[in-house]
C-alpha cells in the first residue's frame, strides 16, 4: 500500500500505476457539479489546487461548536465532470482527482500531460470515509451552492483509494468496459 501525503509531488504521482492501492493523507478539497461548471464559466478557484487533491464528493455535515463535523462522505460519479476535467487539470496544477466510476480518455490524456492521477474511492462507503476526515478546515460557496455542492477543505488521514487512471495512459475502467462489451456480444 503506497502512502501519499499533501503536497503531492509530481514524481510520486507519475510513479503510480493503475490498480495500485494507496492511502491519501493531508488536505483534500471537494468539488463536484456546481464547482466544475463555475470553473468552466470562468469563476475564481476558492483554494490553491497546485499539488493538491480534488475530491468529487458531497458530504453530510453537521454544525458542532464553531465548526463542522463530517457525518458521512464518499465519492460521487465522476463521468459527469468529463467535459470540464481536462481543462481543470491543465489550469489548476492538481495532482490527484478522487471520485468513482472512472473518467474518459480526454481526462486520461490530461493526466499524462500534467502528472496527475485519478483515484477511485469505494462508492458509498460513507461511514468509513467520514472516519478518515480528521478536521474540516473551511468551506466555500456554502450559501450559494448548499452543503452537498460546496467546496470543503478536509484534512484527511489514510483515505483508501485505488489508482483508476494513471499518468502513463492506463485506465482500469477502459479495460473492464472493453472486456464486458465482448462478453455482452457473446450473450446476444
Amino acid at each position, binding site marked *: 500500500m503506497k502512502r501519499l501525503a499533501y503536497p503531492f509531488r509530481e514524481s510520486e504521482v507519475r510513479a503510480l500505476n493503475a490498480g495500485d492501492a494507496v492511502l491519501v493523507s493531508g488536505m483534500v478539497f471537494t468539488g463536484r457539479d456546481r464547482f466544475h461548471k463555475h470553473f468552466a464559466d470562468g469563476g475564481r478557484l476558492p483554494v490553491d489546487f497546485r499539488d493538491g487533491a480534488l475530491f468529487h464528493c458531497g*458530504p*453530510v455535515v453537521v454544525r458542532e461548536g464553531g465548526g463542522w463535523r463530517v457525518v458521512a462522505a464518499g465519492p460521487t460519479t465522476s463521468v459527469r465532470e468529463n467535459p470540464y476535467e481536462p481543462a481543470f487539470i491543465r489550469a489548476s496544477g492538481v495532482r490527484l482527482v478522487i471520485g468513482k466510476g472512472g473518467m474518459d480518455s480526454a481526462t486520461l490524456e490530461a493526466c499524462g500531460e500534467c502528472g496527475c492521477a485519478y483515484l477511485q474511492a469505494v462508492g458509498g462507503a460513507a461511514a468509513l470515509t467520514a472516519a478518515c476526515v480528521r478536521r474540516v478546515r473551511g468551506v466555500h460557496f456554502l450559501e450559494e451552492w448548499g452543503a452537498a455542492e460546496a467546496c470543503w477543505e478536509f484534512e484527511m488521514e489514510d483515505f483508501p483509494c485505488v489508482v483508476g487512471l494513471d499518468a502513463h495512459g492506463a485506465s482500469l475502467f477502459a*479495460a473492464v468496459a472493453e472486456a464486458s462489451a465482448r462478453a455482452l456480444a457473446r450473450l446476444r
Partner: protein
Amino acid sequence: MQIEDKIADLIRKTTSSLPPDAMRALKDAARREAKGSSARMVLDTLVRNAALAARNGTPMCQDTGTLTFFVDERLRHAVTPSVVGRAVAKATERGWLRRNTIDPVSGRSIDTNVCAGAPVVHYAAAKGARPSVTLLMKGGGSENMSRQYSLPDASLGAGRDLEGVRRCLLDAVHKAQGYGCAPGILGVCIGGDRACGYEEAKMQLLRRLDDRNRCAELARLEERVFKEANALGIGPMGLGGRTTLLGVKIGSRPRVPASFFVTVAYLCWAARRRTVRIDMEDCR
C-alpha cells in the same frame, strides 16, 4: 412515541442499517471473489462500512437520495405529508440526511429537504392486519443509471417478447458499468406507460433479494439475467469481478397495443428500504 418521531426513527434506521438480506448478499458476494482482488477489497469495505454505519446510526452512504414513502391508506389522517415533512426536516437537522434538495430553477439548496414534491409520499392500498409505512431511499448516482426502452429496438435486436426484455436488461447493466455503484439491483417493469413503468420498476426494489417471483416465467427471466449480468465481469464499482448484480426483480403493468416499454430502475448496493408498523391506537 409520536408519529412524527416514529417516522424520523424510520429514516434513521433506513439510512444507517442495510436490510439483513442485502447485508447477507454482500457478504456472500465477497466470499465468491478472489482473495486480494479489487472486487474482494471493495465488497469487504462495503460490509465493514455498513456495519460501522449501523453501529453509529449514521448514513451508510452520503447520498441519502430521494425519499419515497409508501403509506398504508388507513394511516392517511395520521401520517400526513406535513407529518412526514417534519420528520424529514428533523432527520436532516440531525445529520441523518444530507441537505440534498435543490430547486432546479433557482439552483438554491432547500436545506430542510422539505418542499412541494419532496419528500415523495404515496398512499397505498391497505395490506395486512397492522398498517405500515415503508421508506425507500435511492441515491442519484444509481438513479442516473435507470433507463427506459421502447420495443422493438433494432440496435439491440430486441423484439416485443421476453427475449427482447432480456436484451434490454443486459444492455442496461452494461451501460451502467460501475457508475451506479455496482453491485446493483435491477427493478424492472415490463409494459405500462412511461410514468407507471418507472413507478412499478421502483416498487420492485422493495422486494427482498431472496424472494421468488410468483410468476414462473418472470422468475426464470430474473434468474437468467442475474447469471448472465454477473458473467459480464464489470464487478464491484466497475473494477472487474464476478459480482455485478445482487438481484433482478421484474414486474409488469398492462400496456396499450402501440407501446411496449421496458423500464429499468437501477439501485446501488445500498438497498435502503425499511418498513415500520404503526398501530391505529398510536394515531389518536
